[in-house]
């Protein structure tokens, strides 16, 4: 009969209980940090949010009024940057997953995309200033800012496109080829429709990213204060994240600008929450659809 070393067994069991508990506590504390941030901003910002806050321009050196120009500016930036980045990103994803045969070229493109996603946002800001603002002479404008943000969000769109195309079963493609369809036709009519919800997830996440980025637009687009809305893409605009930075750090009367800052932060958080909720819903929808096959 084998004798089990009882003491060692006890230690083994208790240490497992202890460390599992510790891991659980540390994990829960991460969620608590998240909830603390959300609670803090929601509880102080909620009373500031009103129709006036969303529809009026800042007044009295940013202590009164609202954030409308910044909100609209951010919407402009989202619209233009996604208009540029989404088609390019999706096509790049299609190229990487459907067309490139050579493993080395594929790896090279992936590596470059990876590098692009690792570049700090402030470096994008420098680059945008050097290329778009100065070299191409767009000046600080919505166009320059959107282009900079578009480049920044490309890797995310490419990667999600690639992943969602990869998860489309090869059988769909083969079936289409067997019916005599060309490669492009197959991609357009068979592969893309299946992968579409997941590709949109990438778009939505990019919108979240673009709406919160400050450093890339500091020198390419963002204006400190503009009472009027921009009338063309060659003009500067205000943007929510930059507006938050401005009122959080450079106000002369902190007590009076603070509520405005909480309100702006809350609007940013709400955008992020909506974006994440949508992305998750779409992802679940996609997962259930892929399972069905």
């Amino acid at each position, binding site marked *: 009969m084998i004798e089990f070393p009882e003491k060692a067994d006890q230690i083994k069991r208790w240490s497992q209980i202890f460390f599992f508990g510790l891991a659980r506590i540390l994990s829960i504390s991460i969620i608590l940090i998240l909830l603390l941030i959300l609670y803090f901003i929601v509880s102080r910002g909620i009373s500031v949010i009103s129709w006036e806050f969303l529809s009026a321009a800042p007044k009295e050196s940013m202590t009164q009024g609202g954030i409308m120009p910044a909100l609209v500016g951010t919407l402009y930036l989202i619209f233009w940057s996604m208009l540029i980045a989404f088609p390019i990103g999706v096509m790049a994803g299609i190229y990487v997953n459907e067309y490139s045969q050579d493993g080395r070229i594929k790896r090279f493109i992936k590596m470059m995309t990876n590098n692009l996603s690792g570049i700090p946002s402030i470096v994008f800001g420098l680059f945008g200033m050097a290329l778009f603002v100065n070299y191409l002479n767009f000046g600080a404008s919505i166009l320059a800012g959107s282009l900079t943000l578009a480049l920044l969000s490309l890797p995310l769109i490419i990667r999600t496109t690639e992943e969602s195309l990869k998860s489309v079963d090869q059988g769909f493609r083969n079936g289409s080829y067997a019916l005599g369809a060309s490669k492009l036709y197959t991609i357009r009519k068979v592969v893309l429709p299946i992968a579409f919800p997941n590709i949109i997830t990438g778009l939505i996440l990019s919108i979240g990213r673009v709406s919160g980025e400050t450093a890339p637009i500091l020198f390419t687009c963002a204006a400190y204060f503009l009472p009027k809305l921009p009338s063309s893409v060659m003009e500067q605009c205000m943007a929510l994240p930059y507006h938050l930075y401005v009122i959080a750090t450079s106000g002369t009367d902190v007590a009076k600008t603070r509520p405005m*800052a909480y309100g702006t932060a809350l609007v940013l958080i709400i955008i992020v929450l909506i974006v994440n909720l949508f992305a998750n819903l779409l992802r679940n929808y996609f997962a259930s659809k892929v399972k069905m096959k």
Partner: protein
Amino acid sequence: MNRSIEKGVEVLIKTCGYFTSVVVVLIVFFLFKEGLSFVGSTPVEEGFSIVVSKANSAITINSVQAKDIFDSKIHNWSEISGKPDFIRLFDLDDLLEIFSPEELGADFENSEVCIRRLLDSLPGAMVVVLNAALPKDHKLHTLQLDKITLYSFLSDRQWFPTAKPVGVYGALPLLLGTLLVSIMAIILALPFGLAGAIYLAEIADNRVRNWLKPLIELLSGIPSVVYGFFGLVVIVPFVQQVFGLSVGETALSGSIVLAIMALPTIITVSEDAIRTIPSDVRQASLALGASHWQTITRVLIPYAASGISAAIILGVGRAIGETMAVLMVTGNAAIMPHGLTHPVRTIPATIAAELGEASFGGLHFKALFALGCVLFVITFVTNYIVDSISRKRKI
């Protein structure tokens, strides 16, 4: 669809495939074009010359000494290995007081003669003069300053780019500040991140996991300004109170904010590393009688070590490049870091804070691009390391 249109679309798709590579090349080109032109230049404010006597033009001083001279901390040429003589500073306004408008000429035509007369009577003089006020082919002697080298840029301990007329461009305080804040952030984040990864990969059941993953993603979705704002209103006062400081904007505040921001990266990458371990490994350990916890610490974590180190490096890389949050909470003192409870300034924060004031194409502007190059190189190297680690793991 028409065959030729189809061909055209395919060419377009291929072009888009290479787009990111082109962008990276363009970023390198524009960044380094400005950044490299900074190396080798003389740190005198653009458009100005510093004129000295012939004897004193033989002395070469560095930018810190020059700054001390103009800050009246160095008074005598003997302090900078010249002949003992008081250093007297003159600028254009002084010249206008000493010489009559007739002597100088309406457009400063005679400025060369006047400055020569001044230097003859006061050999220790140092005249800062607008280049526009000097004839193009003047034969005056200018102060010899050390040129900026890559080494001096990275190793000098003072950063005063706006000092006039000689700027001091030593990026060491910024570099050390960046490293201090980022590495401390990862040290703070690591226990939480690792515990989170282990919990998600090994301990939590699927239901909990499906709840936790989106929440952690949410953490990575929050904009950095919001983190900065949260840091400013919560963490800065907290650090100030706990350590009894006069200001709470310190390296530690920055590290705490960055630690929270780095958590999602560390958790996702290390969880992935643990999760992709073949289940044979896990089962073999369990079959030998090891407890689940023993399996995790003695088998799974060593097995996933390279992936976890990739997570750490990636986290540090992200932290180094983070701009807005750090800008808002670290106090932005461009001095050599004294410790965690003192203000520091990081490289990205410096770029963000100063580029707006730097005149386009000037030396300060170029210096900030050079800082951008440093950042780019750091992130490129971290990416490369992470990439090679993950490739090795696949083999």
